[in-house]
């Protein structure tokens, strides 16, 4: 068990609006140059990684079938699968059988008063879908899926920057979901550091936050 207890300073970096024409490795290297050192952690918001992977999809390019139109009536209306297009993409992502299994789990969850069973059964990646208007301009017209291969990607970015790298989904409800990290010993400290969402959830344009080590304590 690692006994290192790390505290980070948080340095958000203002970037341009990242699009599907950008390469996330090049961008991270460019904006972190001269700041992130070996041992620091570069945190990247999952939605921009997904955008660079062409995983932001216009609703007009999706043709929801009757099942998607029916199923989208059941999730919470403020959630990510409340529109037929988002539900159709969820079906394409994990398959209809897992969606039905998730629905059954969600129904059971209602009886036993436990939330989140849908995503546990149907697939964690569905919780990463940002429905229409869930991402900032100019991607508010898109449905943004979760990123592909985040664990492989963090290793590639580490090679380019020499710093540790994490791809995360953070929200204003203090939830931090790590999708990929180069060194697992940082998981707890990174979660703690990102709990107040230094990426921001509005117009901040800071999808990269450098977590710079501020002190080390060894018990």
């Amino acid at each position, binding site marked *: 068990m690692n006994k290192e207890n790390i505290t980070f300073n948080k*340095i958000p970096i203002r970037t341009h609006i990242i699009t599907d024409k950008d390469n996330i490795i090049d961008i991270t290297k460019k904006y972190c140059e*001269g700041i992130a050192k070996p041992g620091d952690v570069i945190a990247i918001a999952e939605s921009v990684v997904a955008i660079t992977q062409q995983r932001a999809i216009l609703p007009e390019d999706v043709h929801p079938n009757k099942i998607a139109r029916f199923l989208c009536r059941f999730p919470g209306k403020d959630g990510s699968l409340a529109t037929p297009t988002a539900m159709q993409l969820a079906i394409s992502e994990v398959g209809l059988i897992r969606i039905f299994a998730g629905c059954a789990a969600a129904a059971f969850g209602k009886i036993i008063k436990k939330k989140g069973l849908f995503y546990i059964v149907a697939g964690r990646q569905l919780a990463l879908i940002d*429905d229409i208007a869930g991402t900032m301009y100019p991607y508010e017209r898109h449905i943004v899926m979760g990123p592909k291969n985040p664990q492989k990607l963090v290793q590639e970015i580490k090679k380019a920057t020499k710093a540790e790298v994490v791809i995360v989904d953070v929200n204003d409800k203090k939830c931090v979901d790590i999708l990929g990290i180069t060194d697992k010993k940082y998981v707890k400290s990174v979660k703690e550091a990102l709990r107040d969402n230094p990426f921001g959830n509005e117009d901040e344009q800071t999808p990269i936050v450098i977590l710079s080590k501020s002190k080390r304590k060894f018990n």
Partner: protein
Amino acid sequence: MVSRLTNIHSKVIYQGETYYSNVTIESSTTTEVEINYPETTICLVKVKGIINMYDGPIYVHDGIIREIKISPGKDEVIFFIFLDEPVEANIDTIAGIPFRIRINFSRQPMTDFYQNKVLVIDPGHGGTDGGQRGPVNLWERDTAWKTAMELVKVLKDFKAKVVLTREKDENPSWQERINKVPTNTLCFISLHQYHSNDLSQRGTLVLYNELAPGNEKLANQVMESIIGRVKTPSLGVKAEKELSKLGELPALKIKPVTITNWVDEGLLRNPNFYKKIALATSVGIKQFFKMGEIGHE
């Protein structure tokens, strides 16, 4: 060690019982800063360091700060803060990583303009009349109410006197709403959402009272302010007969989004969207009337 400038943001803050338009510049280490005013409405901030952040402009448009432009040099970055009002800032720094430079501009000119002025806010529909419904579940009645509450808050913060035409759960007739307008009203603002049978139609529409002199300009000013802030497509400004029942009173019917569109309905789920609409509306109205004052001079 060379400072790396990493971030800049602007927002309205409340500090010591005063509102400020704040600009914060962040750098990786402690650095030097210099501030001066080449013109009364341009604040120039020079910061020693190398730029690591995106150097594109920031559209602020909060009634005090219009826009910030960034000009990176070899070992110094110049920030041009363009102001709508000739306000000088106070500046302080916060040690740490990142090192923060805080530049605060008083928002007193907004209060000076609105103080004791009467504005009537008319939240559309109400009670059993829900108005139009979005494709998922939002109603025009409820979203108009939320916008109205944010606008009331913004205007009251500027010490304006605000009259509401309806309570949350009632739906008075148009005539009953008009009857609540005091004689010394500066402006009447009715809040709705646009709707269309074409579900792909998005955007913002502002309707105006054509009997009020210059009211088309007022509508354009508010439209520009709203779409600049929330980046919705403009559906233009149009005269509306219903508003002409108010005589020559400046009056607008603002429809921030097209609720029948999936994307626009989605925007209405974000509580900050209502705050942005409210601030943008207050800025647009003030700018129109201030232009009028300058014209009279």
